[in-house]
């Protein structure tokens, strides 16, 4: 998949031996990403909130949380597949 330098070139130069991915390869490999810590808009938090306190902002805009209605059950954080939601205790 990736271009590799001939053996003669490797002996005579300091060029990179294994080349990088081209654009289509990079896009293909990126599909394996589990999106750790980054929201990829699977809608789980939006769907599992018993209080409808998660507001969907639309494609690419992710979500907002309406803390007036949030009861802090933590279902959104539990069901988030990439750990992008953290529940923190409120400071008094």
């Amino acid at each position, binding site marked *: 998949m990736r271009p590799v330098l001939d053996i003669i070139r490797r002996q005579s130069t300091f060029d990179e031996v294994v080349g990088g991915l081209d654009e*289509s390869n990079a896009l*293909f490999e990126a*599909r*394996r990403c589990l999106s750790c810590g980054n929201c990829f*808009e*699977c*809608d*789980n938090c*939006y*769907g*599992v*909130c*018993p*209080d*409808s*306190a998660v507001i*969907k902002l*639309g*494609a690419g805009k992710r979500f907002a949380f*309406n803390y007036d*209605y949030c*009861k*802090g*059950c*933590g*279902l959104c*954080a*539990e*069901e988030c*597949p990439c750990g992008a939601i953290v*529940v923190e205790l409120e400071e008094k």
Partner: protein
Amino acid sequence: METTIKFYQTDTFTVGNRLLSEAERSVQAGMQRTNALNSGHRACQGCGEALGARFAVDAAMRAAGNDLIACNATGCLEVFSTPYPESSWQLPWIHSLFGNTAAVATGVAAAQRVKGTKTRVLAQGGDGGTTDIGFGCLSGMFERNDDVLYICYDNEAYMNTGVQRSSATPPAARTATTVPVGQHPNGNVFGKGKSVPLIAMAHEIPYVATASVADLRDLEAKVTKAMSIHGARYIHIHVPCPLGWGADPAHTIKLARLAIESGLFPVFEAEHGEITGHRAIREQVPVEDYLKLQKRFAHLFRNPKQVEVIAQLQAIADRNIRRFKLLEKRGAAV
């Protein structure tokens, strides 16, 4: 790029899935969902019933073109959603008594027939209002084949009045009226209770299904299918109750999932009294995984560990798996 390798998952548990076409996406993923049970209701943290009710009624609203009337039995769902004079419901909604929801729904459906309107009728209640108190009216509604979709949200006890045992409470569970005492604390006794989905099937009504908040797509598909049929229909939805079960509010979905995957809650559907499909177990887990997360089963794990009781519960799960063929690949219907 030509390739046969697929990294995309389309058969997924996630609520939304951008890889599916708009039409295939779940109701809950849509920004236009009805939010039939809206924010501001007074349910506990992580309430499974509030979640299940929104899932089911939103799907029914879409299927009915937002032309729907709901009748509600007394219970948690009624109490937390409509403390007078407030209401969280975004659709016409009526509550009369604990035991007569099915009869009220029958009347509402009859009124629609007389008036010649196409408004669909939904009746809903908890397991107490369905399996115990409202059972006579429910059976009558099935027998007359009234055009009502009855949804039971099963949280396995009377949670609203303080966690008393109902006929849907599982064996060995602790409730306020089945307190485990003595040297071999057992909780609720084995060999009692009933399965209302199976009783509904015995009425040979057009559609009976069980569903769970853990599998949203399956739930929505069943509600949508039920709404496409006229006549008496029954859907039994398993909804964990963090308060009554003594569980972490964040574990609501996880518990519902473990109940399916262990075999303790069989998810199937039936038409005219015959089972036509089931949701297969993806990865079987021992019942202990499910029991350990709940304080209502904590007496089974204290010294000495009640190995025999756990084995009896495992036997129930194994029997469900055999009976509903839960390990076989998903049935054709869903």
